[in-house]
């Protein structure tokens, strides 16, 4: 199911066993008077260190797939392993961080307190929590705002806090569900750049849900194109733009070719 217009190697950038493995995965939701096939026969292997984007129109099951990986819901058919075990085991081992569509900050905690939240829940050594939270805030450039409360921050800053929060326990896997979807273009492009830097520096595996083609091409090592009704994987596009990427990557002729390729896959699924 791998499509590429370009002569590229299809092997993932890292070797070893996949960190996420999706086999014939299906998810059916009951709805009044019937059922919705949110995901059908999904197959995907994600290698450690990859940046994978799931892209598609609303209703294509991309968020469902991410929530399945995170064990926030359970599949109705197929197999799924995360970090070598079941999604339940991965969640209970706290082996991933999740960034939601909305920042979902605790409004009664200041910025530092919000980043510290997972450490409080996981009961890490008390004296190191604040230092760890500050380190994460430096990583997202918000160290000057540690005592601010969420309502005092812009939407982009709130989402950066939620990214710092997801990184705080040091998970190897990062699930991001349209984290920048509610932000304006300029903020989004800045955050994209910073996310790429974080990914490069931390070596984490990122699974990123988006409905923006250019965001997916810019960020990803592979883009999983999904289509709706029923939600399924239409194709997977390798993005062989050189790393490290910067603003100039957006001008690369291959950038446009990849974008076109994804658009055609999306359109094909629509017909």
């Amino acid at each position, binding site marked *: 199911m791998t499509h590429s217009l370009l002569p590229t190697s299809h092997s993932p950038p890292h070797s070893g066993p996949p960190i996420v493995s999706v086999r014939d995965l299906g998810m059916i939701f009951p709805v009044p008077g019937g059922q919705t096939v949110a995901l059908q026969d999904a197959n995907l292997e994600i290698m450690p260190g990859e940046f994978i984007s799931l892209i598609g129109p609303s209703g294509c099951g991309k968020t469902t797939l991410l929530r399945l990986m995170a064990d926030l819901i359970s599949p109705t058919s197929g197999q799924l392993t995360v970090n070598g075990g079941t999604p339940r085991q991965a969640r209970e081992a706290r082996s991933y961080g999740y960034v*939601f569509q909305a920042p979902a900050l605790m409004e009664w905690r200041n910025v530092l307190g919000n980043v510290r939240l997972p450490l*409080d829940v*996981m009961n890490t050594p008390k004296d190191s929590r604040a230092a760890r939270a500050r380190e994460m805030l430096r*990583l*997202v450039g918000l160290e000057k705002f540690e005592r601010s409360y969420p309502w005092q921050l812009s939407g982009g800053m709130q989402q950066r806090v939620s990214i710092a929060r997801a990184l705080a326990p040091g998970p190897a896997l990062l699930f991001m569900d349209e984290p920048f979807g509610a932000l304006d273009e300029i903020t989004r492009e800045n955050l994209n750049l910073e996310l790429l830097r974080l990914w490069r520096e931390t070596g984490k595996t990122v699974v990123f849900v988006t409905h923006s083609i250019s965001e997916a091409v810019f960020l990803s090592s592979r883009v999983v194109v999904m289509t709706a009704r029923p939600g399924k994987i239409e194709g997977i596009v390798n993005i062989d733009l050189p790393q490290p990427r910067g603003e100039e990557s957006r001008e690369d002729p291959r950038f446009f070719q990849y974008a076109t390729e994804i658009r055609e896959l999306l359109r094909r699924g629509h017909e």
Partner: protein
Amino acid sequence: MSEGGSGKWVVGSGNGQGRVQGMTTLPASTPRRVRRPSNLLPMLAVAVFAALIYWPVMLFANQGAAQKALDSGADLGCKTALACATQLRNPVIPAPGQFWVGMRSLSAQPFSATAAPYNALVTGGETLLGLGLAVVVGLALATLLVRSRSFERATLPWLVASQTVPVVALAPMLAVLLGQAGVQGFLPKALIAAYIAFFPVTIGMAQGLRSPDPLQRDLMQTYRASGPQTFLLLQLPASLPYLFTSLKVAATAALVGSIVAEISTISFSGLGKMLAENSRASDTVALWVIMVYGAALGIALVALIGLLERAVTRWRPVA
């Protein structure tokens, strides 16, 4: 992990939300404290308005009683009903001078057993104790309601029914029952206040405990948070604003409850006991003075809860 390049995060980059403006100048400290405009001036404006209409309303209200007294041949030392309206012994509405005299005589020795301030403190104490009990009971009930749908289905109708029992019916019964157990005075009134206040607190807290949005719950799930952790770190703090809103509603109702309880049971102190005594003596001026004390007590209670709210929910922007 490196901190390199963190400067590239553009602070509030054109997000288009008003509060972003000036974010960069906001010190990294506690939330901005806007000095809250005082309530005093608007309150005074209402007082001035009330004073202006007080005189004609008072004359109108007392005229009938004055005419009746004149017709019966009483010697009031005045000729016309209008002139006598400010001289009645038991006026419908006291003239300012009469009110002032009554106020002075009931407040002169504030801590004597017959003085209004002392009795107001007793009633206030009963109400506060009742509110405290209501918070404990309300939080416990709300937690159970939120935890279990079947508990909610089984108890909610009874909780509603409990609020339809009139205090005047309940108070003497409770006083008798507690009296048999040797409990008298302060506690029965506080229990009545709690009985009235626990309901809004329960409903408010249940709403508050349910208020965290689904994403926040999912977030706690990704951390494998335990039930008690989710309760303490998410639900309880999220419910605090609801608690204070319902407490403000409950406070005035609980105050009325304490006063009614004092009236309808054997009482040795409290505003209700003063109301009962003075109504038997037909001392309308004293009744008006006690009413004003009751109103002031209600304002003080709600203000106290407001102060507590500001102190506990410090994270919230000043409204």
